[in-house]
Every structure is written in C-alpha cells, then in structure tokens.
C-alpha cells in the first residue's frame, strides 16, 4: 500500500481585490509515494511544493482531485496520529520551552504520560539540540535551533510517515549533515519520508525516488539511480603531463589544466584518438570516466520542457 497517493490533485487560488482572477498553484497531480521509501519532492522556489504538502496534510482544501494518506483520509484523526510533519520555516509557541512544547505535542498525539519525559529527552538528543537549551523559551532560539525543535516534534510520536517541508532550511553544513543522517535513520526504522527541497545534492544523496515540479505541474518522477544512470555519450579523460596539452588542443578540444593535472571532456568516438595522442606525448593517464547525468541535469531538463512528459 502506498504511503501517499494523489489523484488529479489540483489547487487554484482566487486572487485580486474581487477574487475574480484564478491562479493555478497545482495542476492535476497524480503520483504515489511507496511505503518505506525516501521520496524527494523537488522544484525551484514558487513551483508549488509547499502548496502540495499543505494539500497532503489537509491544511488547504483542494479545488479538484483527492489524496490518500496511509490508505485513508487525512481528515481521519487515526491517520493523522501516524504522521509527523515539519512545515517550512516552522514557528512554535514562543512562550514555551523546548521541553514544554514537545510535551504539549506529545499529549495531543496521545503519547502515554509515563513515556513522555523519556521520549522527549531522547528525541531532543537525537535532533542534536544542546541540553542547556531544553528549558529555554523558544523566543530565544535561533532559526537553526527552531528547525531542530521542528524535527523533534515531527518524529516524537514515532509516526509511520514523516513529511518534511524544506528540512535543511536554516541549517549550517553540520546541521544539514545531521538532518540527512536523521532522515536515513528514520528510513532504516521502516518509516516513509517525504521531503521537499530545492537543494539537489541533498535529494541525490538521500532519495530512492524523486518528483520534479515546475510551475505547479509535475515534470518528472522516477528512481534516482535510474535518472542518473544514463550516459550522456561523453567521456572525461584525465592525465598528468601538461606537455600533452598542445597535441590535444590541436584536435579541436579544450583541455583544462590545474598544475600538472589536465582534464578534457570528449565525445565517445574520439576517446581512442585522444588516448593515442596522450601516449605519443608520454603523458600519464589517470582516469577515463563516462560522464553520467546528474540529478541537476535531469532537474533542469525537466523544467526546461514546455509541457509535462512524466517518466515513471
């Protein structure tokens, strides 16, 4: 059973003084997130990622289509009990301390009173919030600390599905690394993780599958390994010996030298000729690597398409 399914999900807002002009935020989105996978929802700023997540979480009513979460409706409290959600740029009751806030959410999520204290301490430790900040009011927290509290409240009640809207936002490189580790840990525990991001390296490092959205429209969806496996027909050749550069340049190529190490990207058909030329120049061959599609290449190619050509 998929953890998340959308069927022709649509959202159109009415804008303007008389609310007469329609503005499409999401066009007929049909996709699914399988149970147990890490799914990345990618798109540039303003693409419709947050709108989609709010629709999934039942915070916004769709103007068309439907959503199934863990096989049921998001309106069902029993389903919501199995979901952990971190909104984009989270804001919490700033009069509460981190521990009070988590206790509040734990109570609302029906975490047994006996277990709460132990689970709160363990979760705050897990998200890397320094212990001396646990009893500090949230109004004194930095953006990064709030993000950690946000992650803590999302996983505190041990949900089956964790939905994170831009979870790395506001974090320094160490924090981002910790969040990536946390997402992997959650996945190893059998939880499904759906997160949105525009940072492609995070998605490439973490996700089993990704969907790309642009201007409110699904542009592509697939397994990350498949999307990045295709060879583009080019090969990168690296060698040591700057003396070979004139010979390679004379073949109409553009080698880049850093010190004594030189690299050039050539078409597959020219690989043998380049290697022969390097041998003749007594250069030391270091590597011959096929150039593969990166997630960034895929992302940009999908966004450049005029209409959706969804690959599943």
């Amino acid at each position, binding site marked *: 059973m998929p953890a998340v399914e959308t069927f022709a999900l649509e959202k159109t807002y009415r804008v303007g003084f008389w609310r007469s002009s329609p503005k499409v935020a999401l066009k007929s989105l049909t996709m699914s997130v399988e149970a147990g996978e890490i799914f990345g929802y990618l798109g540039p700023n303003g693409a419709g990622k947050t709108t989609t997540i*709010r629709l999934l*979480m*039942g*915070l916004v009513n769709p103007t068309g289509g439907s959503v199934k979460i863990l096989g049921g409706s998001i309106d069902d*409290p029993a389903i919501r009990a199995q979901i952990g959600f971190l909104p984009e740029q989270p804001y*919490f009751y700033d009069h*509460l301390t981190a521990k009070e806030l988590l206790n509040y*959410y734990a109570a*609302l999520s029906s975490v047994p009173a006996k277990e709460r204290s132990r689970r709160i301490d363990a979760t705050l430790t897990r998200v890397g919030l320094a212990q001396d900040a646990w009893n500090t009011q949230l109004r004194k927290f930095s953006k990064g600390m709030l993000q950690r509290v946000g992650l803590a409240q*999302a996983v505190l009640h041990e949900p089956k599905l964790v939905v994170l809207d831009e979870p790395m936002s506001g974090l320094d490189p160490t924090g981002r690394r910790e969040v990536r580790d946390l997402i992997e840990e959650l996945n190893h525990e059998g939880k499904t993780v759906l997160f949105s991001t525009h940072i492609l390296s995070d998605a490439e490092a973490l996700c089993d599958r990704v969907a790309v959205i642009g201007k409110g429209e699904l542009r592509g969806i697939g397994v990350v390994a498949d999307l990045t496996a295709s060879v583009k027909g080019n090969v990168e050749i690296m060698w040591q010996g700057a003396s070979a550069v004139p010979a390679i340049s004379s073949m109409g190529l553009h080698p880049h030298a850093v010190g004594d190490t030189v690299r050039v990207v050539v078409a597959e058909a020219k690989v043998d000729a380049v290697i022969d030329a390097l041998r003749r120049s007594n250069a030391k061959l270091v590597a011959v690597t096929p150039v593969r599609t990166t997630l960034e290449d895929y992302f940009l190619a999908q966004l450049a398409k005029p209409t959706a050509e969804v690959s599943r």
Partner: protein
Amino acid sequence: MNSRIGVIAFNTFREAVRDRVLYNLIVFALIMIGASLLLGQITIGVERQLLINLGLTSISIFGVLIAIFIGIGLVSKEIDKRTLYTMLTRPVRRWEFILGKFFGLVITLAVNAGFMTLGFFIALLYLMHGFQRSDLSILVAIYFILLQFMIVTAIALVFSSFSTPIESAVLTFAFFVVGSFSEDLRGFAEVAKGTSHYFAVGMSYIIPNFSALNVIASVAHGNPVSHQLILMNTLYAFTYAGTAVCLASLIFQNRNMK
C-alpha cells in the same frame, strides 16, 4: 472535556498568563478599584455605592478588554504565525481546537476576575470594616460579569476564525458596545415601523443582551437579584456562547490555512 481539549485549554491559559499585557490590565483594574476607594472617602453617605459601581465596572471593562485583546488572536494569530500547522496535522479535530481555545480563555478570565474580585472585597472591607448580607448580591453581579466575558470570548472567537485581529477587535468591541445598549435597541424595535422594525428586531436577537447581565447599579443600591434572573441569564449566556462557538467551529472547519 476530552483530553485534547483540556491540553489546548491549558496551553491557551499558560500563554495568556505569560503575557505581560495581561498583568498590566489587571494592575490597572486594581488601581481603578483603589481610586474608587479614595473617591468614596471624599463623598458623604454613598461611599459603598460608589465603590461597588466603580469597582465592578472596572472589573467588567478590564475583563472585556482582556477577552477582546486575547480573544481576537486566538485563531488568527495561530494562522498568521503558522503554529496551527503542527497542531492540525495531529489527531486534533478542528472543533476540538476551537473549544480548547474557548475554555482556555474563559478560565484565564475567571482567574483574573478572581484576583480583581479579591482586590475589590479587600477595598470594601477597608471601607466598611465588615461585610453585610446584601454583599452576596455583589457576587451575583460578578457572576453575571463572568457570563459577559464568556459571551465576549465566544464572539471574538467567531470573528477571529475568519478575519484579521484588527477587524475582529473592532467588530467584537462594536458587539459589546451595542449589546450594552440592547434594551434601547429593543425599545427602538418596538416603536420602529417597516424595514427598520424588522432590522431592529433581527439585530436585537443577534446582538447579545448585555443589559440584562449588568446589575451593577441595582446591586450598588443594595437590591437583591432574583433567582429567576440568575437562571435566565445563565441559560441565555450558555446558549449564546454555545451557538457562537459552534458557528466559529463551522467557519474554521472549512478554512484554508495560508
């Protein structure tokens, strides 16, 4: 009360008591009671009457101000600050959230009124050097003030569920002011003709009847409050507030979070 409503109510109460503005209003109300004590000392024969009038009016006005000030932000502030996102994605029904917020503020107002009442009775004791049997009516007047707070909170909650805090504040305060003159509105409805008559009658049912809940002047003169009025006012306040909270829940049920 189910546990989730109780949890939300307690958090609302805790948020209110950690807000410094609340204390400023309570201190100001206690200063007003103190001032009425001084005013009573420079008048002859009506010290008690003056103290009760000014003291209870202070409790009422400042309580209503607190109800409006906090009530208007109960829902809209949570939407603006997006604290609702992490709340509504938990197993909390939207009507439970509204009810929790309502009870939280009503409890806050009751506790505040308790402190102000204590200050008032200390002032009364200082002035009269003791209590008398008719002072029990003062407690009834304060109970009616609490019923007013409950209605104002419910109205603020309705407006807060679909409009901005400023709009909610203006509309709630307008309801309070017009409701305080509801007897005059009913009088106007009786003499008006045509469309004005129907409009005035309609409004007299929509606008809360705060006139009936204000027995301060009567109590100040030492008059007792009838059991029938206590019963009718209780029924009226609970019905009105209950209807308003249901309306707020209905509006909020389908509201999109921005």
